[in-house]
């Protein structure tokens, strides 16, 4: 029974000297969906992309910096509500509402994060949870602004008429256009987060994850770094939330309940938190499974729990982790064979 989490990981975060533009590749691969897939497929794909964005933002904390946050959905929710309220209640254009959502989320994570990073481990996790539930309580109770437990329905689509000007896009439905818009925005955010992860700043974060004490003694103000990544992650979660509110055409307090934080965390770990592309894979697997299984039974939580158990006991590196291990094993075997023949 191998539970290698305390073992050092394989060379996975190290990019080869030849940098492959994965984000661009994934973007191009996903682009044709509205044309080749059904309406249902496009719809599901939109959700997966949004969840992937959300999960990647969480992994900035979890996998990169080692910060276990149980309250990440708070910033997702802030983004969703700010964007939804601006667009629905005040008729603000998406062009302004979207960045505002990210900014608001970043602001909340700055204030909350300031207190959270002064704690570690379980206390950190519990405080993130407490703050997240405070956000939920506000959304649930503040009828005047957030619509209370009814939430805000009929959040409009952004104005996407300008897309008709782009060749090939004029034939798409609104859902199709929104998919393209979501994909583009998510790709930009993901590329940004990828750059952050592979930058020296990202290296500082992994150092902090590996050994907080040592990180201080190479000259890092650990708390400042943790707060910075907390804000960055919160901001991107806010972008994901904004897109989600439009996608579901409404924002509701359920979106901000703590079980949603658990959901995105499961996604992240299912895909593999030691790999940048782990969380998106996890989002894909989980959302797809969710759709399929809820067609047959109402007991999706049971299935999810079971998947989680299998993950924890048999495949702790997640899906991508499992593939990576297999790949490394194959490579090792090949080099052994080569050495033998030499």
């Amino acid at each position: 029974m191998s539970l290698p989490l305390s073992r050092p990981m394989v060379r996975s975060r190290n990019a080869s000297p030849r940098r492959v533009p994965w984000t661009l590749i994934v973007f191009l691969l996903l682009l044709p969906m509205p044309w080749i897939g059904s309406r249902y497929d496009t719809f599901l794909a939109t959700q997966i992309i949004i969840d992937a964005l959300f999960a990647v933002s969480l992994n900035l904390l979890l996998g990169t910096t080692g910060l276990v946050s149980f309250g990440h959905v708070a910033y997702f929710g802030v983004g969703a509500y700010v964007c939804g309220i601006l667009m629905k209640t005040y008729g603000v254009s998406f062009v302004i509402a979207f960045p505002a959502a990210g900014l608001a989320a970043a602001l909340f994570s700055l204030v909350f994060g300031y207190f959270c990073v002064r704690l570690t481990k379980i206390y950190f996790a519990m405080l993130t949870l407490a703050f997240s539930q405070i956000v939920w309580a506000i959304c649930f109770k503040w009828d005047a602004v957030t619509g209370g437990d009814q939430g805000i329905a009929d959040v409009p689509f952004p104005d996407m008429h300008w897309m008709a000007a782009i060749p090939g896009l004029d034939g798409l439905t609104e859902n199709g256009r929104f998919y393209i818009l979501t994909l583009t925005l998510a790709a930009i955010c993901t590329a940004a987060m990828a750059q952050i992860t592979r930058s020296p700043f990202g290296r500082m974060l992994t150092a902090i994850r590996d050994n907080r004490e040592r990180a201080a003694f190479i000259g890092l103000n650990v708390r400042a770094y943790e707060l910075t990544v907390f804000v960055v992650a919160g901001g991107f979660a806010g972008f994901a939330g904004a897109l989600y509110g439009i996608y579901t055409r409404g924002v509701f307090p359920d979106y901000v309940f703590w079980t949603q934080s658990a959901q995105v965390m499961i996604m992240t770990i299912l895909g593999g938190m030691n790999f940048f592309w782990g969380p998106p894979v996890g989002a894909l697997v989980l959302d797809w499974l969710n759709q399929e299984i809820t067609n047959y039974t109402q007991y999706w939580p049971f299935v999810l729990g079971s998947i989680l158990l299998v993950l924890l006991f048999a495949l702790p590196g997640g899906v991508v982790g499992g593939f990576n291990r297999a790949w490394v094993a194959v490579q090792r075997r090949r080099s052994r064979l080569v050495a033998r023949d030499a």
Partner: protein
Amino acid sequence: MLEITHLRKSFAGFVAVNDVSLTVESQQIAAVIGPNGAGKSTFFNLITGHLRADTGRVVLDGRDVTGLPPYRICGLGMGRSFQLTNIFPRLTVLQNVQAALMAHRGHGRDFWSHSETLFRDDAEALLASIGLGAVAGETAGTLAYGNQKQLELGIALASDPKVLLLDEPTAGMSAGETHDTIALLRRIALERGLTLLFTEHDMAVVFGIAQKIAVLYQGRKLAEGPPDEVRANPEVRRVYLGEHA
């Protein structure tokens, strides 16, 4: 270079470090020794800012660093290697040193460069100079104990310190490894003009390399001086011969 005056620290009534003063000249090699429980680790932790002293001052190269957090003291030129190996286990050996270089050279908040290539050459050179060139690509956590200690030293050196504090640098090493480590330390200190302050249990090491020795016993400084003086000090002999069989 390093002036420590009247340092004192107590924990809930128990006085761990009691009015200890020590001066280490620039480029000197000094050692702090004492039986277990004498307060050596606490003393080091006070100097590097991991603990806050009740009273006393620590002055590094003319700059008062008392009460500053560890990351600031590091930035001002104090390096430290820890007793229990303190490296970044999931990064490669090369990445360990690169990270230290990046942090020291102000690239911690660099969002644009690529962490794989930045300062790679300098890191490789540093590793080569301390004998870890061959294992640069290995994951640090998988290294043998001796190599990890070398890496520990490498990380400390990457911060280009003026003073290097070494907490039991040869602990757990064989005679051969000890010899190599001490030779390495001596060479590095000479090459870089470092001031060394270390604590050790291996008396051969201490008397072999230290130019000044301070003896701690039950939190107080018992004696201080060049090796011969300390060796001949009757109180020191009593404390040690009483402890060692």
